[in-house]
């Protein structure tokens, strides 16, 4: 749905590019998280995809249309929420959504229906007649999301959609975005890590204008460590269990994490390529021990993020 190839952008006469050789793809119905610290080039990339300005080098295509060659076709298909929601303070919410539907080229016959639907979905029903300038920050952000959705776009580009919201509103917005998966293709930028693991199917991490990693949140965690970590809880003699676990092929390391009333917790590390969970389970059971719990442990994205960005900086 979205193909970005070798995007590079220089601002003015600056010799340092804001982004350099950024390449990624987003499939239809996917939610892509665009993760990076402030100033990494997230907004720049998004502005190129939305046709706000052209890249210095490279191409971006949305639904097969090049943003440089067919900007109107691209703009018709994209809903965009910039970092600061573009709102006219002197308009009412309804008047504003109406205006956006008009300039985004939504068919007249569908306008009323869409405005109503979007208002309901974003929880704006009660404030339709209120002037935008009088709304609280949370409502303003919702109006921002509503304006990006009103023309029923195939692609949604959201720049920091939860910034400046209180925790309750953040949860609401995230649920709203999650609800869009499948029907729409979404790119979501953020510098807040939990947001990505909570809402996105895939992550592109960008730092200093370059893509430094791209994968699912789970795989990224694994790839970074080069190992797969599995948590095991079992009942029986600790030494015997540990011995059995070590004998499973591809297991690299077993750590005893403590015991309580004959229940022991182990952290097992295996190679990335093999999934040893089935083997672990059957070994424990056939050894005559009781298996209580067995689950993969991911490294928190926060750690990955720190690691990736600091490595890049060094």
């Amino acid at each position, binding site marked *: 749905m979205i193909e970005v190839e070798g995007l590079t*952008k*220089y*601002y*003015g006469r600056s010799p340092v590019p804001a982004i350099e050789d950024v390449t990624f793809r987003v499939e239809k119905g996917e939610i892509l998280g665009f993760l990076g610290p402030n100033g990494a080039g997230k907004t720049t990339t998004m*502005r190129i995809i*939305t*046709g*706000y*300005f*052209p890249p*210095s080098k490279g191409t971006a295509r949305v639904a097969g249309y090049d943003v440089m060659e067919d*900007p*109107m*076709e691209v*703009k*018709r298909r*994209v809903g*965009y929420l*910039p970092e*600061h*929601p*573009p*709102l*006219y*303070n*002197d*308009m009412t919410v309804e*008047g504003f959504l109406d*205006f*956006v539907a*008009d*300039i*985004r*080229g939504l068919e007249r016959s569908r306008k009323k229906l869409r405005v109503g639907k979007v208002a309901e979905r974003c929880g704006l029903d009660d404030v339709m007649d209120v002037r935008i300038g009088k709304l609280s920050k949370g409502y303003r952000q919702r109006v921002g999301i509503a*304006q990006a959705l009103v023309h029923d776009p195939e692609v949604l580009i959201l720049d920091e959609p939860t910034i400046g919201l209180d925790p309750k509103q953040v949860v609401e917005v995230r649920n709203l975005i999650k609800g869009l998966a499948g029907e729409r293709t979404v790119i979501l930028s953020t510098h807040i890590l939990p947001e990505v693991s909570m809402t996105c199917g895939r992550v592109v991490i960008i730092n200093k204008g370059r893509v430094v990693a791209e994968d699912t949140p789970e795989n990224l965690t694994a790839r970074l460590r080069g190992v797969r970590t599995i948590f095991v809880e079992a009942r029986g003699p600790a030494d015997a269990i540990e011995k059995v676990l070590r004998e499973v092929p591809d297991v690299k390391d077993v750590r005893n994490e403590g015991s309580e009333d004959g229940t022991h917790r182990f952290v097992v590390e295996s190679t990335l390529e093999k999934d040893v969970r089935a083997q672990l389970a059957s070994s424990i059971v056939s050894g005559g021990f009781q298996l209580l719990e067995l689950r993969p442990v991911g490294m928190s994205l926060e750690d990955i993020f720190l690691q990736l960005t600091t490595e890049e900086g060094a």
Partner: protein
Amino acid sequence: MRGFFAVFKKELHSYLTSPIAYVLAAVFLVLMGFLFRNLVMQFNAFCLTYFSQAARFGGQLPELNLNRIVVESFFGLLGFISLFMIPMLTMRLYAEEKKLGTFELLTTSPISNLQTILGKFSACFVLYAGTVGLTLVMMGLLDAYGEPDWGPIVSSYLGVLLLGASFVAIGILASSLTENQIVAVAISFGALLLFWLMGWASQFASGGLRKVMEYLSIIDHMEDFYKGVIDTKDVLFYLSFTFFSLFLTAVVLESRKWRGVR
């Protein structure tokens, strides 16, 4: 076309829901009323002196021309006050969009710069035309108590509207150059004053330069309208002035792409 109407409606709505338009229109009309009153009183005084002189020295004198003394000066002053009023109406048109970030909404929407420019221009022009239209009341008063010639009045209105269109276009161009409304006012006011004084300046030039300066003098083209003459040459001057300014605005907006600004 739809984008044009959407922008037009939005801008007009924004003018009419903010106090700016009302305050400016009120100030404009109060000033025009004040000037109109002065012109009529002046005409009155002229008449008294004129006829007492005629009575004293005898003989037949031609009648004093109400159009020359009141109407022509009235529209001359109207144009001058527009010079102050219009930059204040146009200053926000692009500068505010840039400041609020809504410019990003417009540029990432499938409407052309031309549509937004024309939408904004039309909204501002309609507001100006409406305000100027209210001065018809004064012309009505003139008609009730005197016998003005309506031909020059009608052509003067046309002239003043064409002049206003050029002012609005310059104002929009200035507003597209900056995100600061004060800067926009300063630029448009300065540019308009420069064109206003061009006729005077042309007296101190010679040859081709003088011709160019005379042609660019934005008020000299009004003379014929005041006298009741609608000359295609003058109409074309104001129309091309307007279109050229709007064209430059489009160039400024497009230039954002190749200048590589944020």
